[in-house]
């Protein structure tokens, strides 16, 4: 298979393992193979190209799409049906609800002439979703060969290790195959492989080299790197196109592209700026600093009382309730921090995260921090609810309104400080952690 090496790079050992596992077409292969490795380590690609180039009968199913058992089973059966009867083109939809039916129907389908004498491969991509389905699915697929008594091999693809799959009732152990991460050399080789037709391979390889130098520390995802490479390539070529530098003038090209790539790392890589906006910026030759990223829009405009409700919620979440007296009563006397505290309260509440508080405490704090009198009107209560829908507060536990609901405040300190500043409320003075 000489052309396989040209298509699948840097995965020679895995390919040969798989090939030897598959054996000849009519041989029975290992019942189930479990392939795992990081994102974009070529699991899907290798399996797919291998099965295609060897022209083996196979079904490729992505488990994310099949969110119910029925969808998954029917998809496998229908595709197999299509494989077996491709010439006639008959398309009767098979319905199948349970795994038991599946085994029965599977036997029928694979009885066809062109599937009978060779191994059928079922590939389940994103196999981790199988764990959320009915408990019998995973063990069932693992020993499908035995259950159906047909020449079939199930291949699982996943990003999670096999130990996380193993059901506690025990099951048939699959053959586990690990796809290690690509090394920087591998990445270089693969990325340089698809160079644009109008430039030489060396020129593109030099570009990839610079790109990896910037991005390798933060991102090893091949897909993402390829995407970034394409996005920024026009900028790299710019001096050449303008005639300011030749293709061999690497130093000049490097000086041109390096700051640009660093900016890309802070913006487009984090999806602060979308790729199309980035491309447009490149074309117009603008400074990307002008465009504000997603995180720049942190300001949220809230009604006056909502701001105070949020502040009260924050105080209730981050102050121990015993300190309320000290903050909100006029004649509280002095409380010394060290004597007053229980041991576990000595750690900063901001490190521990927000604590749940009952609605009444929120209202009590609200009444004492708002200058004017606030009546507990329906509008106030509906504001609390709408803050919950905005995810600024969260309802903890059951949502029975009569039993005294409990909330947590989910906003950050910076956010609440910005809010408090707009209503001239010095929140730091009221926070126990900052006393």
């Amino acid at each position, binding site marked *: 298979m000489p052309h396989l090496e040209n298509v699948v790079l840097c995965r020679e050992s895995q390919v040969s393992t798989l090939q030897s596992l598959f054996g000849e077409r009519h041989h029975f292969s290992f019942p189930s193979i479990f392939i795992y490795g990081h994102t974009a380590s070529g699991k899907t690609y290798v399996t797919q190209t291998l099965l295609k180039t060897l022209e083996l009968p196979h079904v490729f199913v992505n488990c994310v799409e099949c969110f119910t058992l029925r969808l998954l089973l029917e*998809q496998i059966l229908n595709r197999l049906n299509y494989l077996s009867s491709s010439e006639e083109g008959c398309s009767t939809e098979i319905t199948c609800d349970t795994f038991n039916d599946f085994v029965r129907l599977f036997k029928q389908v694979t009885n066809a002439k062109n599937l009978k004498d060779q191994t059928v491969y079922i590939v389940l991509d994103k196999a981790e979703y199988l764990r959320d389905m009915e408990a019998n699915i995973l063990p069932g697929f693992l020993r499908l060969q035995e259950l159906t008594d047909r020449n079939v091999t199930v291949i699982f693809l996943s990003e999670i290790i096999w130990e996380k799959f193993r059901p506690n009732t025990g099951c048939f152990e699959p053959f586990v195959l690990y796809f290690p991460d690509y090394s920087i050399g591998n990445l270089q080789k693969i990325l340089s492989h698809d160079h644009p037709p109008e430039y030489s391979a060396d020129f593109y390889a030099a570009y990839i080299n610079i790109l990896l130098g910037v991005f390798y520390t933060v991102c090893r995802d091949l897909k993402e790197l390829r995407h970034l490479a394409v996005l920024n*390539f026009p900028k790299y070529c710019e001096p050449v196109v303008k005639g300011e530098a030749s293709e061999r003038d690497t130093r000049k090209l490097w000086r041109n592209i390096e700051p640009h790539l660093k900016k890309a790392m802070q913006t487009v890589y984090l999806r602060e700026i979308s790729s199309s906006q980035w491309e447009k910026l490149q074309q117009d030759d603008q400074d990307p600093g002008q465009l504000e990223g997603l995180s720049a829009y942190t300001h949220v405009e809230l*009604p006056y009382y909502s701001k105070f409700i949020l502040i009260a919620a924050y105080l209730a979440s981050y102050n121990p309730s015993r300190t309320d007296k000290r903050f909100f009563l006029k004649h509280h006397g002095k409380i010394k921090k060290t004597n007053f505290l229980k041991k576990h309260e000595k750690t900063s509440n901001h490190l521990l995260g927000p604590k749940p508080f009952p609605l009444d405490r929120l209202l009590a704090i609200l009444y004492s921090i708002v200058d004017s009198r606030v009546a507990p009107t*329906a509008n106030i209560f509906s504001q609390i609810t709408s803050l919950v829908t905005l995810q600024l507060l969260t309802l903890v536990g059951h949502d029975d309104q009569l039993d005294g609901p409990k909330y947590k405040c989910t906003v950050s300190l910076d956010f609440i400080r910005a809010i408090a500043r707009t209503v001239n409320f010095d929140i730091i003075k009221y926070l126990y952690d900052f006393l």
Partner: protein
Amino acid sequence: MATSSVSKGCFVFKPNFKKRKISVPIEEYFNEGKNESEDSKLRFETYQVIWQQMKSETEKMQEELNKNLFDSLIKFLQKSHSGFQKNSRDWGCQIKLREIPTAALILGVNVTDHEFTFRSLTEAIQNNVTPYVVKLQARDCPDIKHFLQKLFSQLMDCHVDVESKEEEKDIQKKTHCSMDSLSSWYMNVTQTDQGKPRKKRTSSQWQSPPVVLILKDMESFTTKVLQDFIIISSQHLHEFPLILIFGIATSPVIIHRLLPHAVSSLLCIEIFQSLSCKEHLTTVIDKLLLTTQFPFNLSEKVLQILTSIFLYYDFSIQNFIKGLQLSLLEHFYSQPLSVLCCNLPEAKRRINFLSDNQCENIRRLPSFRRYVEKQATEKQVALLTNERFLKEETQSLLESLHVYHTNYFLVLRCLHQFTSSLPKYPLGRQIRELYCTCLEKNIWDSEEYASALQLLRMLAKDELMTILQKCFSVLNSSSEKQLGSTAKRIEELLAQLQSLDAEVKEEEDASGSQSKGLQKTDLYHLQKSLLEMKELRRTGKKQTKFEVLREKVVNFIDSLVREYLLPPETQPLYEAVYFTAAHTLHEHLNAAPRLALHTALNNPYYYLKNEVLKSEEGCIPNVAPDICIAYKLHLECSRLINLVDWSEAFATVVTAAEKTDANSVTSEERNDIIHARFIRAVSELELLGFVKPTKRKTDHVARLTWGGC
């Protein structure tokens, strides 16, 4: 309808079939309750006419306000899949990740208004981009299955082909909405669409129109559903050109909070910001209230309530307009003379047909009485006795009221031009604040006005000129020529200022110190410079020509204000066009359920109106409903309530009343009955959420409200 409940609230009534058949026309409700109501039908009709006008005006306005946002969104939608349409074999396009174009639409926290925006957005997209627009909200999509089902069914509805509809319903039943079936359906539809070209669709130039999916409330979606959907649809993007629109109420950071990098890297997100709701409110007030287009006006208190509900509670324009509608309705319902609240010629016509009762109503108006008192004796007599004379007089009064309004709004706008640029905004930054102050009292009596005038006397020349120019255009913008002479006067002043140019320069060169006073200043510097100016005056230094002129301008605007910005109470017949019942509005719009419940339980007389229940503060009448007695007793307890003690106290209170009349029943039976009544009262309190059983002590219940000891 009556209920046996003691609390205010919503009650479900099962429809009574007999009653249903005799449907009462809406206008009949205007008759109910008020015996003295006159012309109720006419009033109802007038209400409807004015409300329709107001409604169409607001809709038009909202359309205009949204236009910018929609235009840019539509541009984004149109270009976002154009790259895919080309089916390009370009090197870059093959390698690049296929990202789902996504518009993050930041709409602000006024969630109630979003529905309207989304509705008009859908319309706009359907007219300009693609027929396939789907709106989803989080509560319909608890998991990916429901998500896709909803998407599927709505898409089917978008594609309205009468003959194929039945067929499609079947398809939907059979295939349980996987993304596969969705994209194959889409292929089918677009191909058949190509076969028979459509005339109406503007999107027909597109080979395959994109599918726009609007997620109305991004914040409420669960992470898992969104993630799975994005992963699935990004794999199908080739066959199924999807565009997402996220409706975001808070800030776009929520996208990063909901989606991990692996998923958000599948999106190509652009941000679109809608108009801030405060600006929106300003326009609404400007178009609906600060105009003579609608005869209806709000009093200061009512306007204050409506704006404060908006600013303090919800930021919702819809609610503001609802409040406005309510006050309009209430005005026409409660004020018999509101028949005159219509455009001037119509009102004049109606006066001629007023009944005797209505004439009496006019005479009873406080503002009219004040007016009468100022007249000469013969005229007074005529006004109070002669109907015809009264009607004529009323016509002329209405006319002057109309003139008053026309001038009022023009001068108000002019004054706003002056005060809105002052440092620290002594009279408010927004015109609505200024309007409120002017409605409330004589504005020139207020301290803020005085300080504003002081500041105006410090204005620099160029500022003064731009303000005057704006005022001039404001005055010219009105069609009615009431203030024509004023406009002319301003023009004159402007010309004078311009001609000063050369002279002023010389003056300034001569005395450099004076230029200090001309700059825009803050309060501290103002004081300082005022002192300086006093100093100058004392030394007898002459003012420059510019200063003289500026003084003239300020005096001029002051005189305008004093002449035209009189509070409406001073105008006779103002009751006919001003809605003043702020209290009713407050009760309806800002309900306090807790307070109502507390009043009902604490003071049952308030709702039941039974004389027996009248009691002094603090004591418990023993004839009150059981739940009230139990409630009052529980108010005196702390966090945990001992049931035995409570029951004892309850029995004591109740038996105090029944000692006299319950001789026939044996004491044991009576005790049982009281016990049962107590149990029922407690369980009712539990249902209302005042107490709940606690696990800490078995014979205790916990209080859920605070207060007491």
